[in-house]
């Protein structure tokens, strides 16, 4: 194909009007070529813009498809003839140009108009004249892209027709230019399915996608000239388009669109393809979500998500379907799922995917991996598998903290830091913290707990702190474990905790005893030292014996007869006048078996508002149900308080009854 | 040798004796040869001479035929004829001998010798010959019932000689383009007329006193007419045939009412005005002061609301032809817009019928319409032309006008093949074509100018 061929195209044409003193519109003359008379009649009627008000008007449309695809230009003009009824005749000149030629040079509608308009019809001999095509050039459009154009182009992507109102005074050229600019914002290939007109009749049933008109129609989007409308919420594709093109420079976008000459339409797959094109232009990979297919197994969906993460497939789509499949309610962990997740490294960070897409996925993956309850071990595992807790994963985990155990929460809190940590801490009760500290294997966690407990004590929140700490031996083993090389540190920390629990002053006898007798088996030399250091009473030896040794030996389980004998051996001398301090523990009377340490019922760890509220309630002291953790048992299940639940339920029922009654009564008052 | 007077007297005597049967042969023995004149009287009694070709002496004397025989043969005539021999070249070598030979051959011939110009002499002699017939002027006489007859008015009696004059009063009516023929006929006792001479002159109509002057037998000149003779090649039979049977009574007064349609394309209107101009001018030329002209311009009715509906404009009523022609110039360029398919001819006819005075005897009225569009019907009509708002009926108006005595109707139509009823009615089925109007015929059909059938080739005998 020579250059000259490319720069020109043969025009098929038809002249539609009325025979002199005829009655109906018909094709008067047409060219002799691919299209016959009936074809031209069809083109004219299919894209008829209705009864015109003012003339001339221009309508651009298309004809045929595939290899024979053509773009058509129809110019409606006045004529001086009149029909048999004496009415003015409107003459239409219809030109059809092969699409391939136009696409090769990305010829604009305005250029097509300028080339075709001077061709007078009919052409003698029914010949097909040749018009010259200008070189591709997007620069004229650059300055014309404004909000109205962008909105219009976006609205067209919803597939519904768009009408521009309020532009009645605009001359024909400007209207045509506007249509042209809007079309330039869309891939050139949609012109094979696109139709636009500089004017359509508001009352006509027409099929033109974009036109100027006087009144808006219900079935079309309306754009007011000069006041771009908002894109409706449900027009997701349109919104997506809008956002995507904002990343482009005008000229860049126009070039990109002009290069897309493959035939495409306005159906959703075509439009998603368009969005992909736009994303590809900026190096992004994702595609918008599709509806999930029902009945797919979670594993399969996981695999799909994994694929999507790897770059093949639609992540949003897959995420949505996974969400649907799992319905958001975490079930028990399926090791198979975990296999997939870990095997495909689904939690690992992905560079090309924005956090906002990863997060929802992670929120789905984590419960799948961890089950209903997220434990610290799992978090650590996840951390290991993901190669670190990157931000989206952290965010996802944080959002899932309701399902996480305390230590995991603390862990996350520490990772996230700042206010989040405070929030987390505030949400955890003393006993829980103590328990966490006792169990944790991270020094930072223990330290954090220590700090928190100290803060609580100093800020006056330490009412129950003592009890909690008692049961945890004031974290002595924790410190012993982590600070084993530095007993003085242990002692100092323990002292802090003791002070936090019992106040600034020196310890009283009962306090000292209490401190030691909570968990005598956990008492460490550091704790002994700290207690004794803080105890300034004369009978430190007695404290030791009573507070520490005796419970220790008593709980050691040394035998039924051995025990009491040993205890009797170290019984204190006859008591001096009773110390004024009230004893919280029942006095041990020699000879009698020591009161058993009251068995704790299975502890329910606190977390959250309810326990804090309860702590604040008057008369809140150590409650029997509040206790330390059992020996490294499985983390307790989080449960709502029964009472609260019942209250809420009751309230709801009342409201429902009231509403029901109101609705029942209301009609009787409403009717006149 | 004779004197010229002798010759003259002999010739005069010989000429006087000329009859239709008897010829006179004058042989002139001239220098170059023998010249012969053959004199006869024609049917009208006018002596006429005809010369034969010269016979040179050589041929006569030296030819194959013996001279005497040749000479004798030369002077032979078909019928009886006198012979007059004149030797006009006495000194010639052959003349005397030829003269003798001829005298011997024809002893009854008169022989003279004189040196003169014989031709001139003969002409004079002939011219001086008195008339042997009565010379009359051919005129036309109108009987009481209007029929025309040929009549004669005496000009010169028998024996009149050259130079006599006779006055005669004639009245000339309109003649055709060749003019009026003043014919002189000779009549003998038997009252048989023979044309002597005739002159055709384009004489405007009117009364004249003409003086006929006799210039010799067969020569009469008319003086006192404001025209010169023109050649006329019509035969007598044609002239007689051109005499109409009847002469209508003279037009004492004529009224031409001209209605011109001023709607449609301006060029069309201009052409109509031009035709009207021609018609009026022609009529004025024929009738002069007796003509009165009325001019109406008409257009279509206006059916728009609040539009003034005055389709007929009377520009001139019973004015002079000059005023009418001026008014026609004023009309140039005017046009009446309105209903595009008809013009208010019915209102014109109604108006004219109403305005015309009762007819006078001898006065002629002509109504001429110049236009193209049909008239508005008086009521709803299948042609879908809207009816006249005043409900004028053109058919009734035409009837009124046609029944009026002395009234003629005529029409000039843009395209006669598309002429509608009213035009056909006005023009008896054949309206004149705007592009090619025969103005004279039109004028005649309107009664404004005599038709060709009413042109008189001869003058009327005026009252003496």
């Amino acid at each position: 194909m020579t250059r000259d061929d490319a720069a020109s195209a043969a025009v098929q044409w038809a002249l539609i009007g009325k025979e002199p003193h005829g009655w109906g519109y018909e094709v008067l003359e047409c060219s002799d070529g691919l299209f016959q008379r009936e074809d031209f009649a069809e083109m004219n009627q299919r894209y008829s813009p209705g009864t015109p008000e003012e003339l001339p008007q221009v309508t651009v449309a298309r004809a045929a498809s595939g290899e024979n695809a053509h773009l058509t230009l129809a110019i409606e003009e006045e004529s001086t003839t009149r029909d048999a009824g004496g009415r003015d005749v409107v003459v239409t000149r219809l030109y059809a140009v092969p699409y391939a030629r136009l696409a090769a040079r990305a010829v604009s509608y305005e250029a097509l108009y300028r080339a075709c308009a001077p061709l007078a019809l009919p052409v003698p001999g029914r010949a097909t004249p040749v018009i010259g095509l200008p070189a591709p050039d997007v620069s004229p459009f650059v300055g014309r892209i404004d909000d109205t154009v962008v909105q219009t182009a976006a609205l067209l992507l919803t597939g519904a027709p768009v009408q521009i109102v309020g532009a009645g005074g605009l001359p024909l050229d400007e209207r045509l230019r506007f249509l042209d600019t809007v079309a330039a914002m869309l891939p050139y290939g949609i012109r094979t399915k696109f139709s636009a007109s500089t004017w359509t009749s508001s009352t006509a049933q027409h099929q033109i996608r974009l036109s100027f008109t006087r009144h808006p129609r219900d079935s079309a989007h309306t754009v007011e000239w000069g006041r771009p409308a908002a894109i409706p919420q449900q027009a997701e594709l349109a919104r997506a388009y809008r956002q995507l093109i904002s990343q482009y420079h005008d000229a860049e976008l126009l070039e990109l669109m002009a290069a897309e000459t493959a035939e495409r339409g306005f159906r959703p797959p075509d439009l998603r393809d368009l969005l992909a094109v736009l994303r590809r232009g900026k190096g992004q990979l994702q595609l918008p979500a599709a509806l999930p297919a029902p009945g797919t197994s979670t594993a399969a969906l996981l695999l799909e998500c994994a694929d999507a993460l790897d770059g093949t497939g639609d992540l949003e789509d897959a995420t949505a379907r996974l969400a649907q499949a799992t319905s958001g309610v975490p079930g028990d962990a399926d090791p198979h799922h975990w296999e997939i997740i870990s095997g495909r490294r689904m939690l690992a960070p992905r560079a090309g995917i924005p956090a906002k897409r990863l997060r929802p996925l992670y929120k789905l993956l984590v419960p799948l991996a961890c089950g209903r309850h997220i434990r610290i071990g799992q978090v650590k595992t996840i951390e290991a598998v993901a190669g670190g807790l990157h931000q989206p994963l952290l965010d996802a985990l944080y959002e899932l903290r309701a399902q996480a155990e305390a230590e995991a929460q603390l862990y996350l809190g520490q990772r996230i830091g700042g206010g989040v940590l405070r929030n987390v801490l505030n949400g955890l009760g003393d006993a829980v913290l103590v328990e966490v500290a006792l169990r944790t294997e991270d020094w930072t966690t223990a330290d954090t707990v220590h700090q928190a407990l100290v803060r609580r004590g100093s800020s006056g929140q330490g009412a129950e702190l003592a009890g909690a700490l008692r049961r945890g031996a004031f974290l002595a083993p924790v410190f012993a474990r982590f600070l084993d090389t530095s007993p003085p540190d242990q002692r100092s920390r323990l002292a802090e905790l003791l002070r936090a629990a019992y106040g600034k002053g020196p310890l009283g006898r009962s306090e000292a005893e209490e401190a030691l007798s909570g968990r005598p088996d956990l008492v460490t030399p550091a704790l002994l030292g700290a207690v004794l250091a803080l105890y300034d009473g004369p009978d430190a030896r007695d404290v030791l014996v009573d507070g520490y040794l005796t419970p220790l030996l008593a709980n050691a389980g040394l035998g039924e007869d051995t025990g009491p004998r040993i205890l009797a051996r170290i019984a204190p001398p006859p008591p001096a006048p009773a110390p004024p301090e009230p004893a919280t523990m029942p006095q041990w009377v020699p000879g009698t078996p020591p009161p058993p340490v009251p068995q704790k019922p299975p502890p329910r760890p606190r977390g959250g508002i309810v326990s804090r509220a309860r702590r604040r309630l008057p008369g809140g002291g150590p409650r029997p149900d509040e206790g330390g953790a059992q020996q490294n048992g499985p983390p307790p299940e989080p449960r709502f308080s029964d009472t609260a639940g019942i209250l809420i339920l009751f309230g709801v029922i009342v409201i429902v009854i009231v509403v029901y009654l109101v609705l029942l009564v209301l009609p009787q008052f409403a009717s006149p | 040798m004779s004197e010229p007077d002798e010759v003259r007297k002999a010739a005069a005597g010989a000429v006087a004796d000329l009859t239709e049967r008897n010829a006179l042969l004058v042989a002139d023995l001239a220098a170059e040869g023998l010249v012969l004149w053959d004199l006869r009287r024609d049917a009208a009694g006018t002596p006429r001479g005809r010369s034969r070709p010269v016979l040179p002496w050589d041929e006569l004397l030296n030819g194959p035929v013996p001279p005497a025989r040749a000479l004798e043969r030369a002077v032979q005539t078909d019928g009886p004829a006198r012979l007059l021999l004149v030797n006009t070249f006495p000194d010639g070598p052959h003349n005397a001998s030829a003269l003798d030979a001829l005298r011997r051959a024809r002893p009854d011939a008169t022989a003279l010798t004189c040196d003169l110009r014989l031709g001139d002499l003969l002409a004079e002699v002939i011219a001086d010959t008195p008339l042997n017939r009565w010379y009359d002027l051919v005129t036309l006489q109108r009987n009481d019932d209007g029929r025309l007859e040929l009549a004669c008015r005496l000009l010169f009696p028998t024996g009149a000689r050259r130079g006599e004059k006779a006055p005669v009063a004639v009245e000339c009516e309109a003649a055709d383009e060749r003019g009026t023929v003043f014919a002189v006929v000779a009549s003998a006792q038997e009252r048989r007329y023979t044309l002597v001479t005739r002159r055709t002159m384009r004489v405007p109509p009117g009364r004249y006193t003409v003086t006929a002057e006799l210039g010799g037998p067969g020569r009469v000149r008319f003086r006192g007419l404001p025209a010169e003779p023109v050649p006329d090649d019509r035969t007598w039979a044609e002239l007689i045939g051109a005499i109409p049977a009847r002469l209508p009574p003279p037009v004492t007064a004529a009224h031409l009412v001209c209605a011109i349609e001023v709607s449609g394309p301006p060029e069309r209107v201009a052409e109509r005005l031009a035709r009207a101009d021609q018609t009026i001018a022609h009529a004025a030329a024929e009738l002069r002061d007796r003509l009165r002209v009325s001019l109406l311009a008409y257009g279509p009715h206006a059916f728009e609301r609040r539009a003034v509906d005055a389709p007929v404009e009377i520009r001139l009523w019973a004015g002079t032809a000059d005023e009418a022609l001026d008014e026609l110039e004023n009309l140039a360029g005017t046009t009446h817009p309105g209903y595009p398919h008809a013009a208010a001819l019915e209102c014109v006819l109604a108006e004219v019928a109403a305005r015309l005075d009762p007819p006078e005897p001898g006065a002629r009225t002509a109504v001429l319409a110049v236009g193209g569009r049909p008239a508005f019907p008086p009521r709803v009509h299948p042609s879908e032309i809207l009816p006249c708002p005043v409900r004028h009926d053109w058919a009734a108006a035409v009837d009124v006008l046609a029944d009026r005595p002395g009234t003629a109707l005529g029409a000039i139509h843009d395209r006669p093949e598309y002429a509608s009823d009213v035009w056909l009615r006005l023009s008896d089925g054949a309206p004149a074509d705007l592009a090619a109007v025969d103005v004279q015929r039109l004028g005649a059909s309107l009664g404004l100018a005599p038709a060709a059938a009413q042109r008189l080739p001869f003058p009327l005998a005026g009252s003496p």
Partner: protein
Amino acid sequence: MQPTGRVKENPGMEPERGAPPAEHNIAMWGPPGSGKTTFLAALTIAMNRRQDGWKVVGANGPSTDALIKLTASLATQRRFPAATRGTERYRWYLIGAARERRRSLLRRRAPEDVRIGLDLLDPSGELFNQEHSGYAGAHGELIDNLVNSRGIVFLFDPVREFEDGDAFDYLHGVLSQLAHRMLDSPEFAGGRLPHYLAVCVTKFDEIRVLETAEKLRLVTSDVADPLGFPKVEPEDAQELFRTLCEVSATGNAEMVHNTLAQYFRPERVRYFVTSAIGFYVDPLIGAYDRDDYQNLLPEAESSRAVRIRGTVHPINVVEPLLWLGQSLAADRRGRSAR
């Protein structure tokens, strides 16, 4: 006690309580130039002249605009509306005067106005001729619209029939397709279409039509009419239609009458003799003048452009639409009651 306000002779006029008046789809049917758009344009003027409280109102912006424009072209500019291109759709309401309701003790309601909603389809005439329409899609759309409609205003133009004689061409093709489409519908009972058909013989103001009617002695004059217009009684309208069919140029118009009788139920067909512009009334006389009643005025010598000469007095323009609207409303209520 006052007589009840229930007007029994107009059964379709009661509105459905509570629900908005549903719109009845009515399609105009006729060859190009037969006067479909002019008929609609004359509606407002016709209602105005009746002075019985009926008026026509647009249901949405474009329809109101169209109503104004069409009425103005006839009444103010005195011209026929421009030839329709494509298919126009107008949604109008015919609103009647409020009727007095029977007052009951229990409830007292303000008199409600009667509304008949019309969803009018005005296609360009060329679409009705299968040969020339060319585009199966536009044709198919037309058939779809006709299938959805239940009322048809069929315009028969006698003048055009005199000259061209092609009324049948613009009828049988579309009608056959319509019947084919509705074949399986339960409403296609007895082999006939369920539509209500108002056959309107148009251009009664033309000389040839009136004279034909007069020759047939079908013309009477209504003494109650202040204008004294000639009219053809409804019973005679069918007779006039039949006779006009017989004088067509090609002779095919007879088939028009027979075709209509074949495809539509006789009780659902009514004949009207209409004229969108009516007869000319001289303002000075103020009544019909049988010597001069043409209401069209040619504009220029060479072209066939015409203007309307005087004021517009439509004849039988409201009656077909009102009859269709009421019949359709009654039909719908009957169906919903079942």
